[in-house]
């Protein structure tokens, strides 16, 4: 590790003027805010789309939405939430803001590439949103975009919508790769003095491993995207089999739709962990800080993150049990799926053991963290059902699956996003978010999402299929299911609207929030020890911080405060005599 002394003496070229400071900025903090703001805005579009779908399901015909619009809303909702909101905000938002600050660097190692990464991301979002305005509208192929239906007439947006979707994804992958090179290289090469890999906060570990997954898994989406784009535009037959369309033979022949599914899920499953690992990291830090307790089993947590990352590449076909496969493959993928539950469960135990006998402060970030643990647990347990072939087959394509993945990779990571924003907002703006509004936002969101998704498991058991535009006149779906659907819709609308509380809080507290000072949560990691809050360009003033310890010295017996910052050396810590006797 050599983050050279010369770096400290390097002249800091602080940008001047609004454009260079806030628009074409190469500062990781500005880029982080650009990424997060864009992600949240496009996420709101996806939220509105889900509200519209829920209105159609709960109260059929209540809004002007036909089947085409429903499928388009469903597709765009899924893709936006998974890729353009969650991936972007965890890696581009939190990764950008926190990695350099937490490892004690002045910025990312390739600031120009970092800036390009954001602008490519913005272009990908604009291309995606442009598909609302092309003839035929956006694609309605479902977020998995399975061929042949994705590019066959009859599927909404099979001409222009799908092209824009694929182009947007390709641009996004280029953006994510440029960002990813930065995050990983910064962690490997720009850590400050004394910051060994095993002294990094778990947040950095989570984002670091998730980014490596992204660098290796996004190419699979790229490969499948490029090949489908060629099938659609120049008539190749990579994925398109011989088929009839409206009574006439298409020009395609011999392509393999299953090949697309393999490629898609070779990306798609690591993608779950690209979202989950940063959430694991962030929540570990929130729990430790707000329970004033050192994280339980730090090294175990790191190895769990790494092994989840490795295993995530060998479970993809559990998304394809009903596509048909050799039973031995099914057995293999069911086994790996169950094996991945081991390091995951280990993390849950360690969070609980961190809380055990901790001095738990029920702050808003802590509330969101606790909510994350239970939500992730429920979502994870239903994953064990679906990971087994024989249980999956009857539950496949029912609302049980919808409930499972919304709990585990929708709600759980979003709870961490909220908790983390409440936690780091004071560092970003110098002001606290309003506590009362935060708690109200928390309770509505937490209880609300349970009321939405928990009943969906029962709907799944009843056999209610997912992806249907309307559920009337199916004898196997009892009428009571419709009452439950109406109930879910009402709650979903309430939860959706309540997110305005959060947005209001962000805006209100920016101007009127209580000043936070540099370290309102009494935290040990480097980002809380910057000379200024919010940190200025270059982060550390004249000299880089020097790290002497891990990031989890909370509740330290005998320390003057109940925590010891990472920059405090052993000699500086006053220790009680009695502690020496141990």
């Amino acid at each position, binding site marked *: 590790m050599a983050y050279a002394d010369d770096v400290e003496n390097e002249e800091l070229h602080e940008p001047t003027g609004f454009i260079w400071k806030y628009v074409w900025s190469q500062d990781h903090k500005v880029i982080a805010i650009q990424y997060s703001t864009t992600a949240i805005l496009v996420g709101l579009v996806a939220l509105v789309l889900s509200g519209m779908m829920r209105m159609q399901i709960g109260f059929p015909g209540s809004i002007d939405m036909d089947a085409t619009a429903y499928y388009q809303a469903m597709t765009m909702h899924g893709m936006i939430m998974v890729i353009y909101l969650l991936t972007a905000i965890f890696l581009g938002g939190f990764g950008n803001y926190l990695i350099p600050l937490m490892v004690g660097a002045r910025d990312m190692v*390739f600031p120009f590439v970092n800036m390009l990464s954001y602008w490519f991301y913005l272009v990908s979002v604009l291309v995606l949103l442009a598909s609302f305005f092309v003839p035929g509208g956006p694609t309605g192929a479902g977020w998995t975009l399975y061929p042949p239906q994705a590019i066959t007439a009859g599927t909404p947006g099979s001409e222009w919508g799908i092209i824009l979707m694929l182009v947007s994804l390709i641009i996004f992958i280029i953006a994510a790769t440029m960002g990813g090179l*930065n995050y990983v*290289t910064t962690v490997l*090469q720009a850590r400050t003095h004394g910051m*060994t890999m095993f002294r990094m906060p778990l947040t950095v570990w989570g984002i670091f491993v998730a980014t490596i997954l992204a660098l290796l898994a996004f*190419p699979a989406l790229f490969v499948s995207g490029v090949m489908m784009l060629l099938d659609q535009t*120049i008539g190749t037959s990579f994925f398109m089999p011989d088929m009839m369309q409206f009574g006439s033979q298409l020009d395609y022949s*011999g392509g393999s739709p299953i090949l697309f599914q393999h490629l898609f899920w070779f990306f798609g499953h690591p993608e779950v962990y690209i979202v989950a690992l940063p959430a694991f990291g962030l929540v570990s830090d929130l729990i430790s800080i707000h329970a004033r307790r050192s994280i339980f089993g730090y090294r175990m947590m790191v190895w769990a993150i790494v092994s989840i990352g490795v295993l995530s590449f060998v479970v993809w076909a559990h998304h394809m049990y009903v596509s048909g496969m050799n039973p031995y493959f099914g057995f293999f993928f069911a086994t790996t799926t169950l094996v991945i539950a081991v390091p995951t469960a280990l993390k849950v135990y360690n969070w609980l053991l961190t809380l055990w006998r901790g001095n738990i402060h029920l702050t808003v970030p802590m509330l969101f963290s606790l909510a994350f643990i239970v939500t992730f647990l429920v979502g994870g347990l239903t994953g064990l059902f679906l990971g087994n072939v024989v249980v999956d087959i009857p539950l496949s394509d029912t609302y049980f699956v919808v409930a499972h993945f919304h709990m585990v990779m929708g709600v759980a990571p979003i709870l961490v996003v909220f908790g983390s924003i409440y936690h780091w907002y004071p560092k970003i703006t110098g002001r606290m978010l309003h506590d009362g509004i935060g708690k109200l936002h928390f309770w509505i969101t937490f209880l609300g999402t349970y009321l939405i998704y928990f009943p969906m498991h029962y709907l799944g058991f009843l056999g209610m299929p997912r992806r249907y535009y309307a559920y009337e006149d199916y004898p196997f779906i009892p009428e009571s299911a419709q009452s439950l659907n109406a109930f879910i819709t009402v709650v979903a609308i309430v939860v959706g609207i309540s997110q305005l509380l959060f947005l209001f809080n962000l805006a209100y507290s920016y101007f009127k929030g209580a000043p936070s000072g540099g370290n309102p949560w009494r935290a040990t990691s480097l980002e809380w020890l910057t000379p200024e809050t919010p940190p200025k360009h270059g982060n550390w003033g004249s000299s880089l911080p020097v790290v*002497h310890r891990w990031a989890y010295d909370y509740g330290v017996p005998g320390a003057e405060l109940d925590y010891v910052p990472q920059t405090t050396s052993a000699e500086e810590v006053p220790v009680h005599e009695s502690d020496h006797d141990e």
Partner: protein
Amino acid sequence: MLTQARTTSLPFAASSGYFDQRSASAKTGLHLLMAAMSSMFFLFLLSYILRSQVSDWEALSEPWQPLAQTGQLWFNSALLVVASISLELARRSIRQPDHGHSRELLLLAGLSSFGFLVGQLVFWNFLTSRGFFAGSNPANAFFFLLTGLHALHLIGGLVAWIVATVRLSRQRRQPTEEGLALTKLSIELCTTYWHFLLVVWMFLFALLSSSPSTYAAIAKFCGLGD
């Protein structure tokens, strides 16, 4: 004692220059990029093998097909080998006090890479002139797609090559320590990247010109065949 158990006074890494830091970062970044690219090409090749097992596949390497004569592609490969070797020699000669023939070698590398791209285009032209379009058979589609993507990555490399060339000529006009370090770094990164692209091309060439029975054997080995 929790606090002290977690505390050590690490000796600081030996202080090295700003350029060491920058160069280490750039190399790590390039290695990561090459890992991501390997993942991409690997998945394409796997798709290629899988798709080749469907009956409508008309392998381009059959004796009556265009890839039976690989003379042009061997010539192109030779150009890429020349580019790779000249970059390697340029990387070595830039370390000499008078920079040896680094400028000539760098120019040779650029020209032969450009020649490779032109050569690939000539072969594309040959294919299309004989009626082998991307849409007409999956084997053709893969050929155009894989060689095209490889060429795009080489074009990206040529941008870096231009940077290296500009830096070198600036260094020859106004030598500075900083300029020298940057030039060395640029040439070194180009060299690694070219070696990588050469290896990728060798894999592509070998696979694209293999016989259908080879594909069948690989597919069977991977458990993909019937």
